[in-house]
């Protein structure tokens, strides 16, 4: 009977239940969706690492990317070291698109122990291996990629390598022997070493040498032997060293996304709490009757929890499905961001795993049950007689107001302490934020009571009876209204915080671009503006431009990467004349001295680099060079928002002494003062017409940079919107519950002669007031969130100094969202109530 009554109740309030389920579902969906997208990106990354490493355990790498192929011959032919394989590796583009192919130049004779997927070559007519070795541009693709590009054997494919278009001819197709192998092969363009060297302009060079070293004593001996045979500037490292370093690049990015997704769940929890509280309150009479009939407290407690569990379960299932769908969309956004700012990645599928599903279930069910605990206890605790009256509950809350508020203050205090604790842990940032948010939410009842008192005293007389009633009602129904208000306030505060931090970021970057991009025309190897390029331009391009009459100065840049203390960092070698130097602004160090140190063989480092590795002016950093480890004094720390992994700036001349990398990845051109920027762009474009280079004017590059910036934050904005959506559902369901519960009261009012319009006015006035209170509450919290995001989370994630850009627009928007959302959710009950049958309403109870 107990369960049937429960079921009957739930069925009688389908909308209520549906909204709760939706709330849980959305919360779970957001968390699962984010997890899935991150996981899929991670898996794709692992696969791309796998396909490159194969069975290699180690690799011989150069400190400056690329090593002489004679090293390989030396090891193999001279010293008889087997189980090593040469690799020439690079990314090339399908011309006119951002689609990339991953070029692997391999020696088929050395491959068998390494990359099992190369075992099988489906042949062109005259023997694939022969063509593979002999064909000047012969290449092999996977079946999937060939189909995607619509290529058959002996078709020609154009690829862009650096600034050149090259033709490759498909001479073989590899069919992976299972799903995994097929995935591993995706986007792989396999060439012979010779073809790869020729095509990629890497004659005499290898990207690295793969090595298999057994995990044994003999393995150690072998490793030592190889090390002893390597010339200076080369090292033998574990295969996963670099991929681990690369994976580290996106860890901050991952943490932030996951934290934001968590926020949605927290807001979802408010919603569940609200629903369960409501269902308890609404059935207080029924529960009282049940108790009178001899049902024990623990049975009631269990009943409520089971109900919550059912809602949680349903919500979780819907949430998991929704999360999968959402994940599919998010994975694209996440991948694009990773591609924009970190490294090349193509994600082909959403990788579902048991861990994510379990996490979703645990969160959905766990959060539901956890939040239902309070109302369940409430229901079980009340005596039959008291249960029958609702006001007792409200009275209870008012009585407990000091306690709840005190807890709120304590939580805020704890959170603040965690936030203020000096640390670099992003996790601690969020760990501090959570108690602040919850503590603040617990202060909501106090705030509501205060507001109501204030409003009644201040404006109550002005807005007449309906107005007073509306406001008083909020207080009277404090237990539910404050939860709804808190949920709305948190969501709106999140909106304020996230928007403000993004706009702060945006303003800072825009300002930085102002002085960083001072030249008139920028030329770079096509691809993403921010990401390092595999292939460079040669000297000739630069000297061609320098010779132009319109050109006053050319500043070149070679951007590459290094592993510094286990992390990937960017390294930029610059050739820059005095007037070009003011494009760097220093956070630490005197500019004059900084440049002086740079010229004399020191380095300048970017703010994230200084932050991540805790180095500053006066320190030295140790870098592997061709001639072993060298120490470089740090002359200054400059502001830089182009890379969150940190940048080391070195003078090109000094760089050339230590490393062999040639060419440039980009250069900027300053025209003579009498030359129009457009004219200069034209001249440069004409001069470089036969090369595949990106030539952009100052304005274009700035616009493009901001576009990428905005694109990067799409995921963040999507999450923010989802959070608000969860909150809206919460508010909607809470308000509806409150209003629907007042059926009898409203009926009475109608009977007393209140017009429909007046009734609607009361109801909308009430929700509007709640919205306003939520909006007002959200402002300080939003401010705190913005400050924490900008100064704590961002700083710890990326090491950037941002200027907090406080915009009134955001505040008005937030207020608008709060009030608008509240009014909207009051609309349905208002219409319903206004049009109700008075007699039936009065008879209801």
């Amino acid at each position, binding site marked *: 009977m107990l369960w049937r009554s429960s079921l009957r109740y739930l069925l009688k309030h389908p909308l209520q239940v549906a909204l709760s389920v939706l709330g849980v579902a959305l919360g779970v969906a957001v968390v699962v969706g984010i997890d899935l997208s991150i996981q899929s990106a991670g898996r794709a990354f692992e696969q791309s690492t796998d396909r490159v490493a194969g069975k290699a355990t180690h690799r011989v790498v150069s400190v400056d990317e690329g090593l002489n192929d004679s090293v390989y011959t030396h090891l193999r032919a001279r010293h*008889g070291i087997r189980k090593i394989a040469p690799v020439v590796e690079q990314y090339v583009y399908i011309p006119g698109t951002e689609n990339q192919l991953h070029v692997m130049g391999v020696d088929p004779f050395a491959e068998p122990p390494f990359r099992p997927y190369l*075992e099988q070559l489906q042949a062109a007519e005259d023997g694939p*291996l022969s063509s593979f070795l*002999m064909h000047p541009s012969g290449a092999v693709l996977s079946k999937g990629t060939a189909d995607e590009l619509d290529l058959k054997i002996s078709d020609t494919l154009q690829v862009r390598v650096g600034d050149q278009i090259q033709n490759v001819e498909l001479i073989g197709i590899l069919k*992976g022997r299972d799903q995994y*192998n097929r995935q591993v092969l995706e986007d792989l363009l396999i060439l012979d*070493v010779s073809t790869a060297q*020729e095509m990629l302009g890497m004659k*005499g060079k290898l990207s690295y040498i793969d090595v298999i070293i057994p995990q044994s004593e003999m393995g150690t001996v072998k490793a030592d032997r190889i090390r002893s045979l390597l010339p200076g500037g080369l090292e033998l490292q574990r295969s996963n060293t670099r991929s681990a370093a690369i994976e580290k690049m996106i860890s901050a990015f991952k943490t932030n996304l996951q934290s934001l997704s968590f926020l949605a769940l927290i807001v979802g929890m408010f919603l569940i709490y609200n629903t369960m509280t409501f269902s308890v309150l609404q059935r207080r009479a029924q529960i009282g009757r049940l108790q009178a009939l001899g049902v024990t407290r623990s049975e009631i407690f269990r009943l409520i929890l089971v109900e919550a569990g059912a809602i949680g379960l349903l919500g979780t299932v819907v949430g998991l499905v929704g999360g999968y769908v959402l994940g599919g969309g998010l994975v694209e956004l996440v991948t694009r961001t990773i591609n924009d700012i970190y490294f090349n990645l193509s994600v082909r599928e959403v990788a579902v795993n048991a861990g994510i599903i379990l996490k979703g279930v645990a969160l959905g069910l766990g959060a539901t049950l956890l939040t239902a605990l309070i109302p369940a206890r409430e229901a079980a605790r009340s005596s039959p007689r008291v249960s029958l009256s609702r006001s007792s509950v409200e009275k209870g809350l008012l009585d407990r107001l000091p306690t709840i508020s005190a807890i709120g203050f304590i939580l805020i205090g704890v959170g603040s302490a965690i936030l203020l604790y000096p640390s670099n842990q992003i996790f601690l940032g969020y760990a501090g934020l959570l108690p602040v948010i919850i503590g603040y939410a617990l202060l909501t009842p106090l705030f509501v009571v205060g507001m109501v008192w204030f409003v009644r005293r201040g404006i109550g007389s002005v807005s007449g009876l309906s107005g007073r009633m509306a406001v008083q009602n909020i207080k009277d129904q404090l237990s539910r209204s404050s939860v709804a208000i808190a949920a709305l306030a948190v969501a709106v505060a999140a909106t304020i915080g996230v928007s403000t931090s993004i706009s702060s970021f945006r303003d800072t970057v825009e300002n930085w671009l102002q002085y960083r991009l001072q030249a008139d025309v920028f030329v770079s190897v096509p691809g993403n503006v921010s990401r390092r390029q595999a292939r460079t331009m040669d000297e000739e391009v630069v000297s061609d431009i320098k010779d132009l009459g319109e050109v006053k100065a050319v500043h070149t840049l070679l951007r590459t990467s290094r592993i510094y203390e286990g992390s990937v960092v960017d390294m930029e070698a610059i050739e820059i004349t005095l007037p070009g130097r003011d494009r760097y602004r220093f956070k630490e160090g005197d500019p004059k001295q900084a440049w002086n140190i740079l010229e004399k063989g020191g380095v300048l480092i970017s703010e994230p680099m200084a932050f991540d590795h805790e180095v500053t002016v006066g320190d030295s950093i140790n870098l592997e060079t061709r001639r072993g480890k060298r120490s470089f004094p740090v002359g200054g720390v400059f502001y830089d928002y182009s890379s969150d992994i940190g940048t080391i700036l070195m003078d090109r001349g000094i760089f050339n002494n230590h490393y062999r990398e040639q060419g440039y990845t980009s250069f900027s051109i300053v025209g003579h003062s009498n030359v129009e920027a457009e004219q200069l762009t034209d001249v440069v474009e004409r001069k470089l017409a036969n090369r595949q280079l990106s030539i952009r004017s100052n304005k274009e590059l700035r616009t493009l940079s901001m576009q990428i910036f905005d694109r990067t934050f799409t995921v963040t904005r999507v999450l923010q919107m989802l959070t608000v959506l969860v909150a809206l559902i919460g508010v909607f369901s809470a308000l509806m519950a409150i209003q629907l519960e007042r059926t009898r009261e409203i009926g009475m009012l109608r009977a007393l002669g209140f017009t429909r319009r007046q009734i609607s006015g009361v109801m909308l006035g009430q929700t509007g007031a709640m919205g306003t209170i939520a909006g007002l509450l959200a402002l300080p919290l939003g401010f705190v969130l913005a400050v924490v995001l900008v100064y704590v989370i961002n700083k710890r994630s990326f090491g950037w100094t941002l200027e907090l850009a406080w915009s009134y627009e955001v505040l008005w928007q937030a207020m608008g969202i709060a009030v608008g959302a509240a009014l909207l959710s009051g609309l349905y009950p208002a219409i319903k109530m206004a049009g109700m049958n008075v007699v039936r309403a009065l008879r209801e109870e």
Partner: protein
Amino acid sequence: MKYMIFMNRCISTNSIILILLTGLLTHGCGLSEEEKGRSDSQYRVSDFMSGRDTALFKRADKPRPIQFPRDLGAHPAYKTEWWYYTGNLSADNGRRFGYELTIFRSGLRPDALKIGNPSAWRTKHLYMAHLAITDAAGEEFYSYERYARGAAGLAGAQSDPFKVWLENWQVRRGSESSLSSGKKIPDMLLQAQAEPISLDLRLQSVKPPVLQGDRGLDQKGPESGNASYYFSLTRLESKGTLSIGKKSFEVTGWSWMDREWSTSALGKDQVGWDWFALQLSDNREIMYYRLCNKDGSASAYSNGVIIDSTGQKISIAPDDISIAPQAYWTSPTTGVRYPVRWQMNIPEQNIKLEIIPLLENQELQTRFKYWEGAVSIIGKYKNETLDGYGYVELTGYDDEVNRGSSKR
């Protein structure tokens, strides 16, 4: 081995490619049955016999002066060639060893390269090498193979100073002074290792090179061009170190080198090959090869020589010799049955020899398996006792049908 892979089985093109490809294809078993069927037919040997690209190579169709050191080096104008070293060694304590080190070159299409400034890895040649050691007392037979492109310093051959190598398996000219004494053939250092064996020998030729066939042009089939250029160093004094695992032996003995290059040698009907290289105690050597026809009969192009102590050669025609198997051994790995003991009679020369393997199991466990092993010889010349050591190579026995085993 030599003719099996390089001339018979894959007469025209792509011989190593076929080997490699077969390896690549069968290694992972990534093919469905249906695909397997297709690729088998796709790579049927006959497909590689079009002669389309052999036409681009020179053919061994007329005698041509053999010169030193030039002809020790590579002949890229011809499709195939090899440097074939075998030898019988004994340690101080009398322990007997046999060794084989062979390096093959196979030319890819010589017209295919049209690259202005090619990568050092760009290649026209594939190299393959086999290494085997027979340890008679230890009753162990070790065999290894390697492949490499003839580029980037990984494999290659040059005449002056002589060097042929595949990775760190190599034979190269010893000290320069060894040439100054007016000898045509320099001292050679032979070095090869593969866990757990290692070989390090100095080879000194004590007889002049023997030009096989007609002044070095050795006809293998009826058509013009079905021949090879072929010379042998039949008595190389050998001294050095042979190691197996942690055991190292100072060894001395005699080695034999065959040098052969061609484009297309065997005729279509020839499927196998028994080859004997015998070094007798009276300072004479016998080389004889018997080409086997599909029907199991010996080809009329089988032939051989006896080299006397001064290096003069006496030709042996098929009619001059009888070779009769005395015992067989069946390989547990391949199931192929090889004759492993022979009675060789050359009546006109009054030579009667019993040829006995040091071990029965001397089948190379390489991609294409064949038997090539060290043998000892006991026999008679006229009425005097004769003994010696040598090497025997047996190919084509895996194809009993082709070989017509019933007749053997």
